[in-house]
């Protein structure tokens, strides 16, 4: 640690640490309070103000939350969705960036522009049409059939009782939860920038040695990208796990929705028994996986966050 040449009075240093502790406590208080509430029995959590000493009912409350809503199934759903988005995004954008940076073809710039234009278009600004698209993935083809008046033509050819009806619904499916969120201009952009910094000699050497593009990708590009991938895994896993609006739209059955959405049913309403202990236990359980990922992969998380927005 380099000692700064600025004044370091004991008073100033003490103040720094005191304020820092206050800050950490303020930031951490909601979670401390949630943990306390999650360990208390109902009669204590309903007392005003609630005691701030943890109790011993944590597992019982977790169990209650687990049984009250479909939390087990929903946690599995959340995991599949988060893992699917993470994996899909990284694969799709890495291959895309590889194509854009390492191949010269006519539509290269068009493809890049097409993807790049969607850089900042969250699902929130195109709710209904995206939902309609997911409700019938073949909608555009059906539209084409209708516009070209293929139905009358086909009917004329094969007889009267024939109609082309194209339907492939993604509602209440894992594909529906994952696929629409897999395209990411930011990830593609990130990989593109990274690939551009890789020395030219590597590709030249690979080509001299007669390596095919995919061998170059597997043997050189992929190993070099490991830290970038690790950073993106953290960011995208958290992103996928914490999705709210899209799973809310695309799933209707409690068995297919995600844990973050399922939690809503644990919030005590006006006339309910105020089971805040169960609500807090459930909240802690659902927030645990992404929090653990961030804490355990802290170094990559900070790198990913800062690089992604650069």
């Amino acid at each position, binding site marked *: 640690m380099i000692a700064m040449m600025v004044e370091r009075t004991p008073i100033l240093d003490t103040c720094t640490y005191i*304020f820092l502790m206050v800050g950490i406590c303020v930031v951490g*208080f909601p979670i401390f309070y949630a943990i306390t509430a999650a360990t208390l029995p109902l009669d204590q959590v309903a007392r005003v103000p609630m005691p701030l000493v943890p109790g011993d009912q944590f597992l019982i409350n977790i169990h209650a939350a687990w049984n009250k809503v479909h939390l087990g199934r929903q946690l599995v759903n959340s995991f599949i969705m988060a893992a699917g988005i993470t994996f899909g995004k990284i694969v799709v954008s890495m291959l895309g960036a590889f194509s854009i940076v390492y191949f010269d073809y*006519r539509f290269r710039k068009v493809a890049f522009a097409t993807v790049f234009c969607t850089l900042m278009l969250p699902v929130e*600004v195109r709710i209904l*049409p995206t939902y309609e698209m997911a409700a019938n993935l073949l909608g555009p083809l059906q539209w084409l059939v209708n516009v070209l008046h293929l139905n009358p033509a086909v009917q004329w050819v094969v007889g009267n009782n024939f109609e082309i009806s194209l339907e492939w619904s993604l509602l209440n499916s894992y594909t529906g939860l994952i696929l629409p969120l897999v395209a990411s201009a930011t990830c593609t952009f990130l990989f593109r920038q990274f690939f551009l910094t890789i020395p030219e000699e590597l590709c030249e050497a690979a080509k001299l040695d007669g390596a095919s593009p995919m061998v170059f990708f597997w043997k050189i590009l992929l190993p070099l990208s490991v830290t970038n991938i690790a950073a993106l895994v953290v960011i995208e896993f958290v992103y996928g796990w*914490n999705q709210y609006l899209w799973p809310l739209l695309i799933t209707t059955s409690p068995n297919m929705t995600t844990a973050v959405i399922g939690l809503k049913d644990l*919030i005590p309403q006006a006339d309910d028994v105020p089971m805040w202990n169960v609500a807090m236990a459930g909240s802690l359980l659902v927030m645990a996986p992404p929090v653990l990922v*961030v804490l355990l992969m802290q170094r990559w998380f*900070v790198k990913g966050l800062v690089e992604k927005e650069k």
Partner: protein
Amino acid sequence: MIKRSHFKANALAYLLITPQVLVTLAFFYWPAIQGLLQSLMLSDPFGRRSQFVWLENFVRIFTDVLYLKSIGITLFFSLATALVSLAIGLAIGCLANRALRAKALIRTLLIWPYAVAPAISGILWLFLLHPSYGVVAYFLKNVVGMHWNPLLNGNDALFLVVVASAWKQISYNFVFFMAGLQAIPLSLIEAAAMDGAGPLRRFWVITFPLLSPTIFFLTVMNIIYAFFETFGVIHTVTQGGPGGATNTLVYKVYQDGFIGLNMGASAAQSLVLMALIITVTVLQFRFVERRVQYTT
């Protein structure tokens, strides 16, 4: 841009880019075009009949008192959220930057709220600020002496969602401020200290101006976050209520389109949001100096 040393174009190149382009076309462009068309149409809730009405939907939403109110609420909500989380993030970032010991531990203790879903942050704060059971609400009522009821009072509800949204974002701002602060050359701070500038003066004269690109970038990101990603907070905690006091623009699109089945109005509102975010993105690209270095 392309590598000087690259592979010959072949079917593989197209194959590699196909998934990305297909998903983008299917879930970005097609919906965007559909949205554009829908915003110019008036259709019945079941989508059986629709009529081309030009800009009537836009005229209608911009003369709708509820929509104008929602714009006001969203502006206040996002500015307040951005301001609160930026101020606290900057303060904690500066303090943490001054600390010599336990830096890793301090960072660990401050970054985890980033991973908490906005909706869960909403639940935590709803409990803390619950008029009957919350400990912070108890404090506000009995020590500060406020009439506090976010379930019935619109301003209190807005305060609740601002706090819940800002809390989660403190970590995000903290990470960027730490990175920004570490990039400030120590020599500048030392020189100012030798000239007799105290810590506060050094902050305002040196640190703050040098951090301004970070602050600008974070302001934009926080406002975008408050606009779009706080849907979960609103949906779990207030559902836009009480009396529409927390009905933000994104929540209103969802409510009008998905619950109310008013396709035209919802599409028009989506389009307004889309125009807004495109403007912000373009402005950001214009004004933020790109620090990326390409080596070719």
